[in-house]
């Protein structure tokens, strides 16, 4: 019977992996007093959002109860949380593929989004009570910078829009205490017409995000809420967390993910400009929604390697937790 596929969770050895020829880097720099810390993007994470990971954790905000499951990915997120704390960010900026906007790139500018998010695809797993604080100044700056760069943008100021599970999932898994301000960006694509995001536009949106962060003087951590290979089962077992049936959709999907992750581990990120579209073509990767390209563009495609903290499948999709520290 198939097993959950994985690579080792983050370790000091993997944490030291950097671009070829670059000396192994230290753990994140010790935090300085808040006033002394340099503004800008201090880290970026590939932070996949399967609702199963939230469900498996049984947080108080989520109504369904589980017996666990997908531990290796969740251990990767535990390491992400530890590292994220060390970066002492002011704000988490997340781009998520399930806030689907058909026209343009939207930024949530509601000061205090709150409510219950019953996920229409996975209502048995995800009924999450959310209540968080938006960094409205930064959110508006991203809208402005995006528009100035020629993108169609929109500032969401309506209170009643349900926050999607990809936004909540990445934010919860990265920071379950929700004690950091948030900026949430939509994905400009349309699944029922099978249209993907324009990766060229995601480059522009990423650069706009970086300018907005610098202009507002924030220390920001970016979260790209994407899975990797995205073919998956169209039914599920009686017990959703039955790890006895959890495995990649095909070996080709798994191999496609490993090829991308190897490129990430070797660095530099510029190699991913070609590798990401190739991976999308090979595996129907969810990165077609643009979150990963947005993140790397915002970071300026730094000449570093990424640190793969965990990999595992969720209903056969590939998911990796990855850190980049510029």
């Amino acid at each position, binding site marked *: 019977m198939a097993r959950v596929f994985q690579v080792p969770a983050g370790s000091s050895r993997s944490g030291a992996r950097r671009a070829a020829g670059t000396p192994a880097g230290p753990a994140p720099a010790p935090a300085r007093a808040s006033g002394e810390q340099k503004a800008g993007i201090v880290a970026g994470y590939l932070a996949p959002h399967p609702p199963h990971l939230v469900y498996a954790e049984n947080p108080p905000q989520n109504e369904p109860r589980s017996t666990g499951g997908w531990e290796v990915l969740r251990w990767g997120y535990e390491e992400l949380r530890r590292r994220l704390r060390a970066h002492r960010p002011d704000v988490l900026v997340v781009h998520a593929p399930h*806030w689907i906007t058909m026209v343009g790139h939207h930024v949530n500018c509601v000061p205090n989004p709150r409510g219950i998010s019953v996920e*229409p695809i*996975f209502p048995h797993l995800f009924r999450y009570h959310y209540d968080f604080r938006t960094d409205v100044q930064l959110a508006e700056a991203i809208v402005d910078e995006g528009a100035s760069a020629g993108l169609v943008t929109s500032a969401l100021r309506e209170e009643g*829009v349900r926050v999607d599970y990809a936004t909540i999932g990445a934010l919860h898994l990265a920071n379950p205490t929700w004690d950091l301000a948030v900026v949430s960006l939509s994905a400009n694509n349309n699944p029922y017409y099978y249209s993907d995001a324009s990766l060229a536009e995601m480059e522009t949106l990423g650069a706009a995000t970086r300018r907005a962060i610098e202009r507002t003087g924030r220390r920001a951590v970016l979260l790209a809420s994407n899975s990797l290979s995205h073919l*998956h089962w169209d039914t599920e077992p009686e017990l959703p967390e039955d790890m006895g049936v959890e495995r990649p959709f095909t070996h080709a999907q798994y191999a496609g993910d490993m090829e991308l992750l190897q490129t990430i581990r070797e660095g530099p990120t510029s190699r991913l400009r070609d590798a990401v579209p190739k991976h999308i073509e090979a595996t129907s990767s969810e990165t077609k929604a643009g979150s990963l390209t947005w993140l790397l563009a915002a970071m300026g495609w730094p000449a570093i390697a990424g640190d793969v903290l965990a990999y595992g499948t969720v209903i056969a999709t590939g998911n990796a937790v990855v850190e980049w520290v510029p």
Partner: protein
Amino acid sequence: MIPAALVPAMPHLLAGDPAPSWAELATATRTVGDRLRAAGVDTVLLLSTQWFTVLGHQVQCDARLRGRRTDENWYRYDFGHLEHDLAVDTELAHRWADAIDAAGMQARRTLYDGFPVDTGTIVASRLLDPRNQGRWAMVSCNLYADPSAMAAVAGAGVRAARDLGRRLGVVAVSGLSSGLTGRWITPAEDRVEDVHDRWNRKVLDAIRAGDRAEVLAMSPQFGEAAQADSQFRAFAFLDGAGAVDRPGEVLAYGPIWGTGAAVVWWGNQEET
């Protein structure tokens, strides 16, 4: 003979200041509602491609769906704020789910407070049933399942309704071509691009001719060339209900924000 219809999913049909095509499509959808009532339909089997799912086939089992949806894309417009109050025929819904399971597929009974009803379902129900007098049995559109699975799901719904003695109508809420305009436009600017327009008309001509086999045969190509809404699973669903083996009456066709949309009615052949 089960009366059936294809109606659009986009909320622009509820605009206070609509483009001419939006108004025509809305009027035609209301006409479908009138005809369903005239046919004495007890319950409408409804598929909305905007309730898209990926695991199994979700059947709505909540008896009453009341609420307000603020659309995540269209919130800046009047038509982006959607009140709804839907009565679900839960007896049929459960029987339908049982029939889906019995057919070897996976039904998922959906009964959750605060469940977000999709924009397409709300728009269609408000136009088809403006006085909230009708009953619905609703299923999701599984984008990972083969379109033929949607036909099997519809067939299960028809069998379930027959077992219960329901007088049934079948409605698929979906668009035709995509080509959604990627910027904020005024209603007067709305149009379907030429290639997609030709595809939509080709499909509608086959529907008018009652050539279901031709429509099914061209659906994959339609999905590819015009990025048809959910690869035109809507037609597969209607076909599975046995509702499109006769000429369809195209009541309206036009653009909605660049996408193609149509209202098609399949009634008794004497009517059409």
